[in-house]
């Protein structure tokens, strides 16, 4: 399969990349790791006239300061999978990274590219929703920070303007004892999720301070079941509360029936994964 013709640009700086984007507008696409863009170009679902390859602009640092984690847009899934900072303090991310596609794809695919692709079956979108993260969008006009719920607009659609580049992801560090995980059901390594759930829980004096829940592949985009989250805020972390949250999350999901499973089956998996994820998160928070 051969993509349609395009002009290839490999800018030496972010400024130069932003100039190219403001010049070419929606005729241009940004190429990072290419693990989503190149497949859609090969299928000619995307036929950009210009490709701006930002793959060598750095932007891959993972660092922690001022109570938050900052991840450069070009951090590879592999880097995140191997990060000790993530293993120590960001368990939802640490759990999700090794479940993304397969090990070879993770060597090239980037967190920024994955978020900008906004596939409802993508994993990072759910993780970032559950963690209350935001993204930094740069253009020649300036910079803005956008919270994940506003960034993820619809299927394959984000708040990113054609002249903008996502440069970093910002993840707040939980204040109190916290825990979390990412549970993903897939038919085989490398397949898209049948269903996945990102769950984060932080405690304050033994009660739930904040629950972050987000669902993968059961709606037009990564979904945040806000009723389920609200039912947990300030509540005692009991099995009954988790069961109610699972039920509410399943209700909020809107899966389609396809070769990976029926609507009822997927809803059931949402219920089970949310309950199971909350129990794991609680255990981790109590051990913290």
């Amino acid at each position, binding site marked *: 399969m051969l993509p349609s013709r395009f002009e*290839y640009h490999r800018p030496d700086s972010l400024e130069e990349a932003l100039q190219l984007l403001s010049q070419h507008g929606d005729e241009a696409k940004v190429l990072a790791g290419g693990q989503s863009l190149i497949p859609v170009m090969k299928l000619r679902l995307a036929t950009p006239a210009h490709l701006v390859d930002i793959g060598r602009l750095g932007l891959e640092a993972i660092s922690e300061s001022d109570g938050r984690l900052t991840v450069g847009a070009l951090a590879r899934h592999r880097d995140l999978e191997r990060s000790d900072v993530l293993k120590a303090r960001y368990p939802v991310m640490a759990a999700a990274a090794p479940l993304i596609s397969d090990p*070879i794809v993770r060597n*090239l695919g980037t967190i920024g590219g994955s978020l900008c692709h906004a596939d409802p079956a993508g994993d990072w979108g759910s993780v970032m929703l559950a963690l209350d993260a935001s993204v930094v969008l740069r253009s020649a006009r300036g910079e803005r920070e956008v919270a994940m719920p506003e960034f993820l607009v619809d299927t394959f659609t984000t708040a990113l303007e054609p002249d903008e580049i996502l440069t970093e992801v910002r993840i707040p560090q939980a204040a109190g004892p916290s825990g979390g995980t990412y549970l993903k059901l897939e038919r085989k390594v490398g397949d898209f999720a049948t269903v996945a759930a990102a769950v984060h829980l932080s405690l304050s004096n033994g009660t739930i301070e904040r629950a972050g829940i987000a669902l993968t592949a059961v709606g037009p985009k990564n979904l945040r079941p806000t009723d389920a989250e609200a039912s947990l805020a300030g509540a005692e972390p009991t099995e009954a509360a988790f069961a109610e949250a699972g039920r509410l999350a399943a209700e909020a999901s809107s899966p389609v029936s396809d070769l990976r499973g029926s609507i009822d089956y997927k809803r059931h998996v949402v219920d089970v994964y949310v309950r199971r994820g909350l129990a794991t998160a609680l255990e981790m928070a109590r051990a913290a």
Partner: protein
Amino acid sequence: MQITVKVNGADRSADVEPRLLLAHLIREEFGLTGTHVGCDTTSCGACTVLLDGQPVKSCTMFGVQADGREVTTVEGLLQDGQLHPIQAAFKQEHGLQCGFCTPGMMLTGSALLADNPSPTDDEVRWAISGNICRCTGYMNIVKAIQAAGRDTAAKASEGAEASVGS
């Protein structure tokens, strides 16, 4: 676009269309047909090559992205006319049947061993989970990768003893 890629240790230049995939650059421009194109959809791993030492699927990368970088294909495993330990082990342990997935399997295996010279069964299976084999059932592929790790370690300790003895 004029590009130069270090392929198996030697600089190779070509004038290519930006849309040319790395797999086709390697096969058609450089004539190295050991890199196989299987699914062409980032699933099977038959087209795996090493980019600066890391396995990548060459059907899902443009040749121009490899400009100025190092690519190792299966042809680059051979060392001074001798089989690389992973090639010798695949032969010894019958780690292949039809051979189509083998170049990718061996390259992924060699990258794993560079990181982890004595991987467990699970670690090998995890590492090759992006490479699909439809013949072997993987048993002998796992054995071959582990055997290559042991052979490399044994040769290294023989070498160390020899240099102590001299």
